[in-house]
Every structure is written in C-alpha cells, then in structure tokens.
C-alpha cells in the first residue's frame, strides 16, 4: 500500500493538515476542510482532463485559455437571460472544438503538444479579449451563484458531483478496456499500435476530454466567482500540471491516476489556505509551492531510479541462480 503513489500523496495531505492544525486548530475544522475542497473544485476538474492528456504522453497548456473563453461566453449567455442548459451545451461545444483543433495539430500535423497548446493558449486569450471587448462579464444573475452554495447531506452539491465524477473516471481508466488504451498509448506508443489500439483517435480524444473539462471548470468558475475578468484563469495551467505531478502522474506518459491528480490539486490549494492560517504573508505562496514541487519531484525520481536498479539486480541474480542450478 505504501508503495502506491496516491497513498503517499494522501499521507502528505493528512500530514499537512495535522502540522498546520497544531499551529492553528481552526484549520482542521470540518468547515474549513469543506471550504478547501470547494475552492479546489476548478483545479480538480482541470486535473481530470489533464490526466487524460498526460497519460497519452502529451501536454495541454491551453486549458487556462479554454477556461477563460468558455467562462466569458457562458457568462454572457447567462447574463443575457439564457438557460443553464444552453450554457452547459455551449461550454461543452467550445471545449470540444478547441480540443479537436489541438488534437488535429498534434496527431495529424505532428506538432509537439507543448508548442501546439501554447500557441492555442495565446489564440484563445485573444479571442476572449475580442469577444468581450476587453471588458469584464458582470451582472450574472444571482440564482447562478446560488447553485454553488446548495448543500446535500451537509456536502456541497458541486463537490459531491466532482468526487463521484473522479471515482467514475478512475474506474473507467483502470478497469475498462477502452479506458486503459490511454495508459497503453503513453506507456509505449509503438506497442499500442502493434496491439491494434487506434492510437491517433485516442490521442485526439484525450485533448477533446481535456478541453471539455476545462470548459466545465469555466462554468464552475462562473458560478463560484460570479463574474469573469479578462484575465480569468491566467497561469492556471502551470498549477494544474504541478498538481498532476504532485499526484504522481508522469509527464512522460503511461503512469498516473485521476485520484492522485485530484489529491495533488487539493494539496496545492490547501497550501495556500494553510499559509493564510499560519499567518504567512501572501507573497510567500509562489516560493513555497515552487520549492515543494521541485522537492517532491526530485525525491520521487530518485526513489523510482533506485527501485528500478534494485529490480534489475533481482532479475540478474535470479538469472544467475537459474544457470547454476
């Protein structure tokens, strides 16, 4: 159990809460845990989509732009009296379109996913500015904002939906044969082709899923914040990648779980609130998240390297013993 990466991530999260709880007991209250979860919802949804892309061995930097654009469009629709159904439909359409373009560029034109989605990020940002004329989308009806405060069994409705969503996606990715295609592609693309897995199609799917997740995160963003500024979601993509890496998703592809990525997202947002509870000035945030990311990644890489070498030695010994026998 301890060898599983997600478990280590969870331990780290618990440790964080315990340590900060010693300094300020208010931090471990149920209320605050609920609040931490609520504020990390956007990151969790983004991390779900990002995990699909990372599993296939690609990278999606454009999610911040997709989030901003769909939040702006949906915000405008809701402001002008459109129904929630229409807003959700539009968000999914926008996300799927952007994901499809990303997928086309990466799979067909063979552009490195990092470059393709980075360019997509700047394009979506410009489209957002043109669409909103550089203004903020405000005056969104209050009933949209109330949606994010509904409680069921003492839990926030959105939190509940997202948690169930993470579990369903996890089961899909690890148990269903189609879901395991994503991991197989990232682990060994040539091998996946030989097995008859439609590699190109599933790589494109991963970008589409990531785009749709980013758009849904945009909807959650609108309902939680209540307005869309012209720089909504700036820099969020780096935080999400960091969250996935913290949760044990490999950037090389083929390794990682959605649960781990979601835990990573909770950790990153909890660190920020922990700093508030420990009365550390806000300008320390970036330094601490940056150094934590580096420390965790380096330790993990060293552990993996050592485990690999040990496994090699064991294999070699086994072979030598066989020969002697």
């Amino acid at each position, binding site marked *: 159990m301890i060898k599983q990466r997600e478990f280590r991530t969870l331990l780290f999260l618990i440790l964080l809460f315990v340590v900060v709880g010693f300094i300020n007991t208010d931090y471990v209250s149920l209320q605050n845990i609920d609040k931490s979860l609520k504020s990390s919802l956007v990151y969790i949804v983004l991390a779900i989509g990002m995990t699909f892309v990372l599993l296939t061995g690609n990278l999606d930097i454009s999610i911040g732009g997709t989030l901003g654009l769909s939040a702006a469009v949906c915000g405008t629709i809701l402001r002008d009296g459109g129904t929630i159904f229409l807003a959700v439909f539009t968000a999914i359409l926008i996300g799927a379109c952007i994901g499809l373009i990303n997928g086309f560029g990466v799979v067909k034109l063979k552009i490195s996913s990092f470059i393709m989605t980075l360019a997509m990020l*700047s394009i979506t940002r410009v489209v957002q500015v043109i669409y909103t004329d550089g203004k903020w989308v405000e005056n969104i009806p209050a009933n949209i904002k109330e949606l994010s405060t509904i409680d069921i069994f003492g839990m926030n409705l959105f939190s509940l939906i997202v948690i169930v969503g993470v579990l369903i996606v996890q089961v899909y990715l690890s148990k269903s044969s189609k879901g395991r295609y994503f991991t197989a592609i990232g682990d060994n693309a040539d091998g996946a082709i030989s097995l008859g897995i439609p590699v190109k199609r599933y790589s494109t799917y991963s970008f589409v899923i990531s785009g749709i997740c980013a758009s849904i995160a945009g909807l959650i963003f609108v309902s939680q914040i209540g307005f869309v500024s012209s720089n909504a979601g700036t820099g969020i993509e780096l935080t999400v990648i960091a969250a996935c890496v913290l949760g044990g998703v490999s950037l090389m592809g083929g390794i990682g779980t959605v649960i781990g990525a979601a835990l990573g997202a909770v950790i990153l947002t909890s660190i920020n609130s922990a700093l508030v509870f420990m009365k550390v000035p806000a300008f320390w945030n970036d330094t601490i998240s940056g150094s934590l990311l580096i420390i965790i990644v380096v330790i993990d890489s060293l552990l993996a390297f050592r485990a690999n070498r040990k496994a090699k030695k064991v294999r070699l010994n086994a072979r030598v013993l066989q020969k002697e026998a």
Partner: protein
Amino acid sequence: MLTKIPRWNLALFLIIIAEIIVFGMMNPRFWNITILLNSFNDFIAVAIIGFFVTLVVITGGIDISGVSIIGLTSVVTGLLSQVVGLNIWVSIICAILIGGLCGLFNGVLIAYGRVQAMVITLGGMLLYSGIAIVLVGVSGVSTYEGISGFSESFSKIANGEVMGIPSAVIFFFSMFFIAYILLHRTRYGRYIYLTGINQNTAEYSGIDTKKIITSTYVLSGLSAGIAGVVLTSYLGSARSDYGAEYLMPILTVVVLGGTLITGGKGGVVGTALASIILGFLQIGLQMAGVSTQYIGLATGVLLIVSVAFLGINPDFRLNVKRIITPKQNIGG
C-alpha cells in the same frame, strides 16, 4: 549543396525582407532605419534568452524558467544598488551570477537528478518569481512602483549609443556572436549536438553529457540574468514582474528558428532571424494601426504554422516528392 537548415534560414531571411516591404507600404515610417534599429529594444530580452535556450533545446531539454529569472535579477540589481548601497556594477555582476546560479540549480537537478526538464523549470519558474516577490516584500518596497532612482550611467547601458548604433543592437549581435561561436565553432558545440541526437551514444563515446547538459542551463540562466539587467536599465526601474509575458515569444523564436523541440537539430542563426521577424511583426502591426490585442493572435498562428511546416510527417513529404519527381526515378 544546400542542406536543410540553411534553406530554412533563407526562408526566414526572405520573410524579414517581405515584412520590411509590406509594413513599409502600410506606413512609410517603417522604412526609417533609426526607428527599425531602435525597435530592437522591444525584443532584445527575448532574443538574448532565445539564443541560449536554443542550446538547451538542442540537448533535448527545455528551459521555461528564464522568464522569472529576468524579474529576479531585476529585483536583485535594484535591491543591492539602491537599498543595500553597493556599487552599481558590482550589483549587476552579482545579479547576473544569481541568474547563472538559478540555471545551475535547474541543470544539476535535470542532469544528475534525472527529472524531466519541463517539470524542474516549471517549478523553478514558480520558485524564482516567488523569491523575487519575497525579496520585494521583505525589503518593504512597493511592488507596483518598483525600485527606481538608478544612476545616469546605469540607464546608459540600454539607452545609449555607440557610433550611432543603439546599444540594444550591439547587445543583440554580441550575444548572438557568443552563442554562435559556442555552438557552431567549438568542440563544446559539437558535444551539445551529439548529446541531443543520442545521449547514450554520446555518453559511450566519452562525452560527459551530464556536464554538457548542466552547462547549457547555466548559460541560459546567465543570459536571462543579462536580459534582466538590460530590461531594468531600459525601463529605469526594478520590478519582479518583468518578463512574465515572454514565455511564448521565447519559445516561438527558438522553434520558428528551425530548432527541433525534440533536440539534436537547429542553430542560433535561425533564432536570431526569427527574433527579428517577431520583433518587426510586432512593431509593424503597431505602426499599421492594428490594436495590440491582435498581435498575440498573429504570433500564435505564426508559431503553429511554422512548426507544422517543419514537422510535417515524412510520409507526406515523400508522397509530395514522388508526385513531383519524374516517373523514371520510381522503381528504377
């Protein structure tokens, strides 16, 4: 015989000529040589970092932390000279060395810790900009105004001229020259290429690839430090958020310059030409009255198109070649 890379450089050069002609027709002021030379100031930081990130990318890595090293060196220069009271030149050297130290930190973790370059420099990007913000916060200087009040001689670094040539142009060509010599005229440069083509083979043939990789990150950090000092001198105040929007342009000039993102192929000549293209594109669009928000769209499309063109499937190229070449070559 023309090899592939020079042909790409030729295409880039033709694009620059086309830009000068087209933008000049839109606004004749673009043909004014002084304005063109002064426009170097707007992209000098991107170009300086781009030259050395090219070296990093050729080894097969990537360095995105340069954008925060700019802010860090800017703040360190300001703090050491204005708050601590050190001599301005000493503080500049200290600041650039700190940039190199950041690069060393990246490089050691990537080469010896065997962590992916993308993650480490991502963490570094957060860390270095965080340190810059902390330094500003601890010293009690206002974040929005920055540290100003530099001496006349300091602002001469970027705003001065030598024999009528703006110093930004001189910086551009001297940094280009250093990168060119290092990459294309020394044994060290050949080792960089070999490492990028196949690290294992390079290792077996007796090259200390870890040292080579680390050194490229140090160079990239040092160049980001120099860019930070130049930018501080040009804008007259030290702030932690300088360079924050340069990530996209830096990668664009490297990739548009013909350097393969997977490593092993490319050169600084392309990077130099690409940064001129990008700089002229921005200033030309501004002069033609295009609002600044559309320029991001132009650079984004440029990035996708250039990489798509460079990276098009070899099968596709082969097919095109087969259609174009006469029939007797096939199956002969």
